[in-house]
Protein backbone atom coordinates (compact mmCIF):
# COMPACT_ATOMS: atom_id res chain seq x y z
CA UNK A 1 0.00 0.00 0.00
CA UNK A 2 1.36 3.40 -0.95
CA UNK A 3 0.15 6.62 0.54
CA UNK A 4 1.38 10.08 -0.36
CA UNK A 5 0.80 12.98 2.01
CA UNK A 6 1.22 16.58 1.00
CA UNK A 7 1.19 19.62 3.27
CA UNK A 8 -0.45 22.92 2.39
CA UNK A 9 -0.69 26.07 4.47
CA UNK A 10 -3.34 28.65 5.12
CA UNK A 11 -3.48 31.53 7.58
CA UNK A 12 -6.94 32.16 8.95
CA UNK A 13 -8.76 33.46 11.99
CA UNK A 14 -11.70 31.98 13.85
CA UNK A 15 -13.72 32.39 17.00
CA UNK A 16 -15.12 29.47 18.92
CA UNK A 17 -18.60 30.42 20.02
CA UNK A 18 -21.70 28.20 20.11
CA UNK A 19 -24.83 30.32 19.57
CA UNK A 20 -26.99 27.89 21.56
CA UNK A 21 -24.95 28.48 24.70
CA UNK A 22 -24.94 31.57 26.90
CA UNK A 23 -22.05 34.01 26.89
CA UNK A 24 -20.90 32.70 30.21
CA UNK A 25 -21.13 29.07 29.07
CA UNK A 26 -19.14 29.92 25.93
CA UNK A 27 -16.43 31.65 27.95
CA UNK A 28 -16.23 28.69 30.29
CA UNK A 29 -16.18 26.12 27.48
CA UNK A 30 -13.84 27.74 24.97
CA UNK A 31 -11.77 30.02 27.24
CA UNK A 32 -9.55 32.41 25.30
CA UNK A 33 -10.72 30.86 22.02
CA UNK A 34 -14.03 32.64 22.73
CA UNK A 35 -12.50 36.13 22.81
CA UNK A 36 -14.91 38.40 20.95
CA UNK A 37 -12.86 39.40 17.92
CA UNK A 38 -11.37 36.00 17.09
CA UNK A 39 -7.77 34.91 16.76
CA UNK A 40 -5.73 33.17 14.07
CA UNK A 41 -3.35 30.39 13.23
CA UNK A 42 -0.98 29.35 10.50
CA UNK A 43 -2.88 26.18 9.76
CA UNK A 44 -1.24 23.24 8.00
CA UNK A 45 -3.58 21.13 5.90
CA UNK A 46 -2.29 17.63 5.21
CA UNK A 47 -3.97 15.76 2.39
CA UNK A 48 -3.24 12.01 2.29
CA UNK A 49 -3.82 10.06 -0.91
CA UNK A 50 -3.69 6.28 -1.31
CA UNK A 51 -3.62 4.10 -4.36
CA UNK A 52 -1.54 1.99 -6.66
CA UNK A 53 1.72 3.32 -8.00
CA UNK A 54 1.45 3.65 -11.76
CA UNK A 55 4.07 1.20 -13.06
CA UNK A 56 5.06 3.45 -15.94
CA UNK A 57 5.46 6.76 -14.12
CA UNK A 58 6.22 5.51 -10.60
CA UNK A 59 3.67 7.99 -9.25
CA UNK A 60 0.65 7.39 -7.05
CA UNK A 61 -0.86 10.80 -7.81
CA UNK A 62 -0.22 13.73 -10.14
CA UNK A 63 0.86 16.27 -7.53
CA UNK A 64 0.12 19.24 -9.75
CA UNK A 65 -3.48 18.09 -10.13
CA UNK A 66 -3.65 17.64 -6.37
CA UNK A 67 -2.19 21.12 -5.80
CA UNK A 68 -4.77 22.69 -8.10
CA UNK A 69 -7.62 20.78 -6.46
CA UNK A 70 -6.60 21.72 -2.91
CA UNK A 71 -6.08 25.32 -3.90
CA UNK A 72 -9.42 25.65 -5.66
CA UNK A 73 -11.48 23.63 -3.20
CA UNK A 74 -10.01 24.81 0.11
CA UNK A 75 -7.11 27.24 0.22
CA UNK A 76 -8.65 29.87 -2.01
CA UNK A 77 -11.61 30.18 0.37
CA UNK A 78 -9.77 29.70 3.68
CA UNK A 79 -6.43 31.51 3.30
CA UNK A 80 -6.32 34.99 4.85
CA UNK A 81 -9.97 34.79 5.87
CA UNK A 82 -12.04 35.06 9.04
CA UNK A 83 -13.66 31.63 8.85
CA UNK A 84 -16.77 32.49 10.91
CA UNK A 85 -17.76 35.39 8.70
CA UNK A 86 -16.30 34.53 5.32
CA UNK A 87 -16.84 30.79 4.84
CA UNK A 88 -20.58 30.06 4.58
CA UNK A 89 -20.25 26.55 6.05
CA UNK A 90 -19.26 28.16 9.35
CA UNK A 91 -22.18 30.56 9.54
CA UNK A 92 -23.99 28.07 11.78
CA UNK A 93 -21.22 25.59 12.58
CA UNK A 94 -18.48 26.47 15.08
CA UNK A 95 -15.18 26.54 13.13
CA UNK A 96 -13.26 24.37 15.54
CA UNK A 97 -10.36 22.67 13.84
CA UNK A 98 -12.39 19.46 13.97
CA UNK A 99 -15.04 21.14 11.84
CA UNK A 100 -12.42 22.79 9.63
CA UNK A 101 -11.02 19.31 8.89
CA UNK A 102 -14.50 17.94 8.16
CA UNK A 103 -15.34 20.86 5.86
CA UNK A 104 -12.00 20.59 4.03
CA UNK A 105 -12.54 16.86 3.51
CA UNK A 106 -16.09 17.41 2.27
CA UNK A 107 -14.86 19.99 -0.26
CA UNK A 108 -12.07 17.71 -1.48
CA UNK A 109 -14.46 14.74 -1.79
CA UNK A 110 -16.92 16.81 -3.82
CA UNK A 111 -14.28 17.69 -6.42
CA UNK A 112 -12.21 14.48 -6.26
CA UNK A 113 -13.86 12.45 -9.01
CA UNK A 114 -13.87 15.35 -11.43
CA UNK A 115 -10.14 15.80 -10.87
CA UNK A 116 -8.90 12.22 -10.79
CA UNK A 117 -11.66 10.16 -12.44
CA UNK A 118 -13.09 6.91 -11.13
CA UNK A 119 -9.86 4.89 -11.38
CA UNK A 120 -7.55 7.45 -9.82
CA UNK A 121 -6.13 7.54 -6.31
CA UNK A 122 -8.43 7.75 -3.28
CA UNK A 123 -8.55 10.41 -0.60
CA UNK A 124 -7.30 8.66 2.54
CA UNK A 125 -7.23 11.36 5.21
CA UNK A 126 -7.32 15.08 5.82
CA UNK A 127 -5.38 16.44 8.78
CA UNK A 128 -5.53 19.95 10.14
CA UNK A 129 -2.53 21.00 12.20
CA UNK A 130 -3.71 24.04 14.11
CA UNK A 131 -0.57 24.56 16.16
CA UNK A 132 2.46 22.41 16.90
CA UNK A 133 0.46 20.89 19.73
CA UNK A 134 -2.97 20.35 18.17
CA UNK A 135 -3.66 18.01 15.25
CA UNK A 136 -7.07 16.92 13.94
CA UNK A 137 -7.74 14.18 11.41
CA UNK A 138 -10.87 13.52 9.40
Amino acid at each position, binding site marked *: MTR*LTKRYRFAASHRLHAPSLSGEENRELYGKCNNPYGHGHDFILEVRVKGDVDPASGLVVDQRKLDTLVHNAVLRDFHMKYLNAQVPAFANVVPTSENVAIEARRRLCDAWQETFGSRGPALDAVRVIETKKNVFES
Partner: protein
Amino acid sequence: MLITRKAEFSASHVTARPDWSAERNAEVYGEAANEHGHGHNYQLEVTLSGEPDPVTGMVLDLKELKQILEREVILPFDHHHLNREVPPFDQIVPTTENVAREIWRRLAPHFDGSTPPSPVRLHNVRLWETEDVYVDYSEENG
Protein backbone atom coordinates in the same frame (compact mmCIF):
# COMPACT_ATOMS: atom_id res chain seq x y z
CA MET B 1 3.98 -2.12 19.97
CA LEU B 2 5.42 0.13 17.27
CA ILE B 3 8.87 1.71 17.39
CA THR B 4 10.17 4.25 14.90
CA ARG B 5 13.71 5.26 14.09
CA LYS B 6 14.59 8.29 11.98
CA ALA B 7 17.48 8.70 9.59
CA GLU B 8 18.35 11.08 6.80
CA PHE B 9 20.24 11.12 3.56
CA SER B 10 20.90 13.69 0.88
CA ALA B 11 20.77 12.54 -2.72
CA SER B 12 20.14 13.72 -6.24
CA HIS B 13 17.83 12.24 -8.82
CA VAL B 14 16.08 12.78 -12.13
CA THR B 15 12.45 11.82 -12.32
CA ALA B 16 12.11 11.12 -16.01
CA ARG B 17 11.97 8.04 -18.22
CA PRO B 18 14.76 7.77 -20.79
CA ASP B 19 12.34 6.04 -23.19
CA TRP B 20 9.91 8.99 -23.13
CA SER B 21 10.26 12.26 -25.01
CA ALA B 22 11.32 15.39 -23.16
CA GLU B 23 7.82 16.77 -23.70
CA ARG B 24 6.12 13.75 -22.17
CA ASN B 25 8.50 13.72 -19.20
CA ALA B 26 7.85 17.41 -18.58
CA GLU B 27 4.12 16.79 -18.80
CA VAL B 28 4.21 13.97 -16.23
CA TYR B 29 6.98 15.09 -13.87
CA GLY B 30 7.14 18.86 -14.36
CA GLU B 31 10.39 20.56 -13.42
CA ALA B 32 11.58 17.38 -11.62
CA ALA B 33 12.28 15.96 -15.09
CA ASN B 34 15.28 18.29 -15.53
CA GLU B 35 17.84 16.00 -17.15
CA HIS B 36 20.71 17.26 -15.01
CA GLY B 37 18.93 16.25 -11.83
CA HIS B 38 18.26 17.97 -8.53
CA GLY B 39 18.50 16.93 -4.90
CA HIS B 40 16.70 16.56 -1.60
CA ASN B 41 17.44 16.12 2.08
CA TYR B 42 15.39 12.99 2.50
CA GLN B 43 14.09 12.15 5.97
CA LEU B 44 13.37 8.50 6.63
CA GLU B 45 11.16 7.08 9.39
CA VAL B 46 11.24 3.31 9.75
CA THR B 47 8.58 1.75 11.95
CA LEU B 48 8.85 -1.78 13.34
CA SER B 49 6.26 -3.81 15.22
CA GLY B 50 6.98 -6.25 18.00
CA GLU B 51 6.71 -6.88 21.72
CA PRO B 52 9.23 -5.72 24.32
CA ASP B 53 11.58 -8.47 25.49
CA PRO B 54 10.64 -9.29 29.10
CA VAL B 55 14.28 -9.08 30.23
CA THR B 56 15.59 -6.04 28.34
CA GLY B 57 12.31 -4.16 27.98
CA MET B 58 13.20 -3.46 24.35
CA VAL B 59 11.44 -4.48 21.13
CA LEU B 60 14.82 -4.35 19.41
CA ASP B 61 18.21 -2.95 20.28
CA LEU B 62 18.03 0.34 18.38
CA LYS B 63 21.78 0.19 17.76
CA GLU B 64 21.09 -2.85 15.62
CA LEU B 65 18.40 -1.03 13.66
CA LYS B 66 20.74 1.93 13.22
CA GLN B 67 23.45 -0.34 11.80
CA ILE B 68 21.03 -2.00 9.38
CA LEU B 69 19.76 1.41 8.20
CA GLU B 70 23.33 2.60 7.72
CA ARG B 71 24.33 -0.45 5.74
CA GLU B 72 21.22 -0.92 3.61
CA VAL B 73 20.13 2.67 2.98
CA ILE B 74 22.31 5.51 4.23
CA LEU B 75 25.71 4.36 2.90
CA PRO B 76 24.45 3.43 -0.57
CA PHE B 77 22.08 6.44 -0.91
CA ASP B 78 23.68 9.38 0.93
CA HIS B 79 25.46 11.89 -1.33
CA HIS B 80 24.84 9.81 -4.41
CA HIS B 81 22.95 10.25 -7.65
CA LEU B 82 20.15 7.70 -7.36
CA ASN B 83 19.65 7.11 -11.10
CA ARG B 84 23.34 6.69 -11.85
CA GLU B 85 24.68 5.05 -8.73
CA VAL B 86 21.93 3.14 -6.93
CA PRO B 87 20.32 0.14 -8.66
CA PRO B 88 17.46 -0.43 -9.46
CA PHE B 89 17.07 3.29 -10.20
CA ASP B 90 19.00 2.84 -13.43
CA GLN B 91 15.89 0.88 -14.50
CA ILE B 92 12.99 2.46 -12.60
CA VAL B 93 12.28 6.12 -11.98
CA PRO B 94 13.33 7.20 -8.46
CA THR B 95 10.08 8.90 -7.54
CA THR B 96 9.50 9.18 -3.80
CA GLU B 97 7.00 6.33 -4.17
CA ASN B 98 9.59 4.04 -5.78
CA VAL B 99 12.38 5.04 -3.39
CA ALA B 100 10.15 4.27 -0.38
CA ARG B 101 9.32 0.84 -1.84
CA GLU B 102 12.99 0.11 -2.53
CA ILE B 103 13.88 0.99 1.06
CA TRP B 104 11.14 -1.41 2.20
CA ARG B 105 12.61 -4.16 -0.01
CA ARG B 106 16.07 -3.62 1.43
CA LEU B 107 14.89 -3.64 5.04
CA ALA B 108 12.11 -6.24 5.04
CA PRO B 109 14.39 -9.35 4.97
CA HIS B 110 15.95 -8.18 8.26
CA PHE B 111 12.57 -7.93 9.98
CA ASP B 112 10.51 -10.83 8.68
CA GLY B 113 9.36 -12.01 12.11
CA SER B 114 12.15 -14.56 12.56
CA THR B 115 14.34 -12.30 14.74
CA PRO B 116 15.03 -13.91 18.10
CA PRO B 117 13.95 -13.67 20.84
CA SER B 118 10.69 -12.01 19.79
CA PRO B 119 9.42 -11.59 16.24
CA VAL B 120 10.02 -8.06 14.97
CA ARG B 121 8.43 -7.05 11.70
CA LEU B 122 8.83 -4.10 9.40
CA HIS B 123 5.59 -2.12 9.73
CA ASN B 124 5.96 1.07 7.67
CA VAL B 125 8.50 3.10 5.73
CA ARG B 126 7.85 6.83 5.66
CA LEU B 127 10.04 8.87 3.37
CA TRP B 128 9.92 12.67 3.44
CA GLU B 129 11.15 14.13 0.17
CA THR B 130 10.72 17.69 1.42
CA GLU B 131 9.15 19.20 4.52
CA ASP B 132 5.83 19.19 2.65
CA VAL B 133 5.67 15.80 0.93
CA TYR B 134 6.07 12.30 2.27
CA VAL B 135 5.20 8.77 1.17
CA ASP B 136 4.21 5.84 3.39
CA TYR B 137 4.85 2.35 2.06
CA SER B 138 3.92 -0.95 3.67
CA GLU B 139 3.02 -4.47 2.67
CA GLU B 140 2.36 -7.80 4.33
CA ASN B 141 5.66 -9.02 5.72
CA GLY B 142 6.81 -12.41 6.99
